[in-house]
């Protein structure tokens, strides 16, 4: 890598880092604002609150029925992760191992829900779910969330499965493994790191998936992020600090899983599907 040492190059580098610093500082300050406010007794027109308290957490907990909301959230996420894992991994295996007419079309079909913003396909999807009576129910929310997550798992898993040599499966066959044994003793252990990474990413994305859940959820099938939206939307009804306390609870739920996920995946994988092979 060529590093320039001229004054112009140094100024340019300084300007670039200053921009990054400005962005990061504002981002962290924004998060700190939410956290500070959630512990504030009264915070108006000063740098820091007048005093500190934790009571907003208990009031948010009861006001927003957070226990119920959290239960629904985790049930939705659990169902989404499980179903997208089963559907996604099996489909990815077929797509990685077989060439058949129409495969390209199918891959395009799986790619589209990831490229098209959820708001665009969410409205017709919600309409269909309302007409079938699924909207507002738990399974309606799960179904809507699966639309982008199943393709996501497929597209993360295809390259992962492709890099496993099919000869390993052939070898297992030769040594007498039947289909079930092949799957349990050979494929599953080999695929586990990929499945784990894909499902953790699905989990993190589903907690934060607002649009689809918002469009199809009813009062008893809201997830935390939708409840937070309604709370902010109706700001003025509740104390700001109470909403902030709820926001902190939401942040903690997300960040715990993000930290777990980052043990297994590279942060860039949350945005790009497969890390590009660094060219030698």
């Amino acid at each position, binding site marked *: 890598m*060529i590093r320039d040492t001229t004054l112009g190059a140094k100024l340019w580098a300084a300007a670039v880092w200053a921009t990054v610093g400005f962005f990061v500082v504002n981002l962290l300050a924004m998060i700190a604002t939410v956290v500070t406010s959630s512990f504030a007794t009264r915070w108006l027109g000063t740098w820091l609150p007048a005093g500190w308290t934790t009571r907003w957490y208990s009031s948010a907990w009861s006001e927003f029925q957070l226990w119920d909301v959290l239960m629904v959230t985790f049930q939705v996420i659990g169902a989404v992760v499980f179903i997208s894992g089963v559907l996604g991994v099996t489909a990815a295996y077929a797509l990685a191992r077989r060439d058949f007419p129409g495969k390209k079309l199918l891959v395009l079909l799986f790619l589209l829900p990831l490229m098209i913003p959820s708001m665009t396909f969410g409205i017709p999807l919600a309409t269909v779910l309302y007409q079938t009576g699924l909207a507002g129910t738990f399974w309606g929310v799960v179904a809507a969330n699966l639309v982008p997550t199943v393709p996501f798992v497929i597209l993360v898993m295809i390259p992962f499965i492709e890099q496993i040599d099919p000869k390993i499966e052939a070898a297992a066959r030769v040594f007498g493994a039947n289909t079930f044994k092949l799957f349990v003793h050979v494929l599953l252990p080999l695929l586990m790191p990929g499945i784990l990474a894909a499902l953790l990413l699905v989990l993190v994305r589903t907690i934060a998936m607002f649009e689809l859940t918002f469009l199809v959820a009813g009062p008893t099938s809201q997830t935390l992020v939708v409840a937070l939206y309604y709370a902010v939307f109706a700001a003025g009804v509740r104390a700001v600090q109470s909403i902030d306390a709820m926001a902190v609870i939401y942040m903690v739920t997300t960040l715990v899983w993000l930290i777990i996920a980052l043990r297994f995946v590279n942060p860039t994988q949350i945005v790009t599907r497969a890390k590009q092979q660094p060219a030698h």
Partner: protein
Amino acid sequence: MTIALSQFDEVRLDRVSRDFGALNALRDVSLTIRRGEFIALLGPSGCGKSTTLNCIAGLLPVTGGAIWLDKSRVDTLRPEERGFGMVFQNYALFPHLNVRQNIGFGLKMRGRPRAEIDRKVDEALSLVRLQGQEHKLPGQLSGGQQQRVAIARAIVIEPPLVLMDEPLSNLDAKLRLEMRAEIRRIHNELGATTIYVTHDQDEALSLADRIVVLRDGAVRQVGSPKELYETPAHFDVADFMGFRNKLKGQVVAVEGSRAVLDVEGARISGIVQERVTPGAVAYAAIRPDDLVVGDGGRNAIAATVDTIEYRGREFVGTAHSAGGLDFVFRSHQQVEPGSTVHLQADDERVLVFAEPVQGRH
């Protein structure tokens, strides 16, 4: 010929050093390259040969010493200001530019007129024998053709010095021999000055006017291919130049340029390459070609045959001595594995080296 390489007398590396953090990648490398020479930098991987080349090209800043082109100092210049031509290991052809644009890239960057660029690129194309391919993208070329483009691109800017970083390592064996000859032909036709990095001693021996052997970031020996092949100055250079039989022993006597070693009770005499004193531990180094099955007279050591391979005109075998020394030898007749033979070498073909200083490598 209008591709006329810039005229100069010599390129001089004056105690060039390069640190990577605490690690010393290059230590006080001094070297003078005269105009028209073909110099090979030879050594095992990690010896600093590519680092040396990158320092000359300006891709890595030196951390000590200086590089001179005649009277002007170049190590402080940025790579684009040095004007040396470089051929990269993976060619580094611009994948979005066709052959003609790749070759003309350097001239275009210098803002030369279109007509001049066209003329010089045509000439470079004919020099590397790529006429008719000029509108192809690099991805459409074979490995050998890509190699030719990379060479043309480096020489068309008429550099005082052409740098080549293991340019043949990505080619298959047959193409490698062919391109080796091509590189030498182009060097001769242009009267270029070339520094060529390789880890392949055959390549260095056949191409270079002078070979610089590097090890652990330091120059171990500089000499003509013949000098290096026949009289390596150090034990590790001998090892690298194909002296595969390394007999550890004790110096019994030193007489002028000869020394006699006691190797597991056998007397082995050879030519002294490094100063040795009687009583000290030393090594006798012999090429497999020079170690033959004999009748057990002078300069012989007994060994048990492990394997024997038929190689057409002769046999090549491996053996070990009672004390655990390993041998690779040549034989005119079949010998049975398990049998004991006397391996023997001519005095003139045995080189004696002092024991390498430990902890250096």
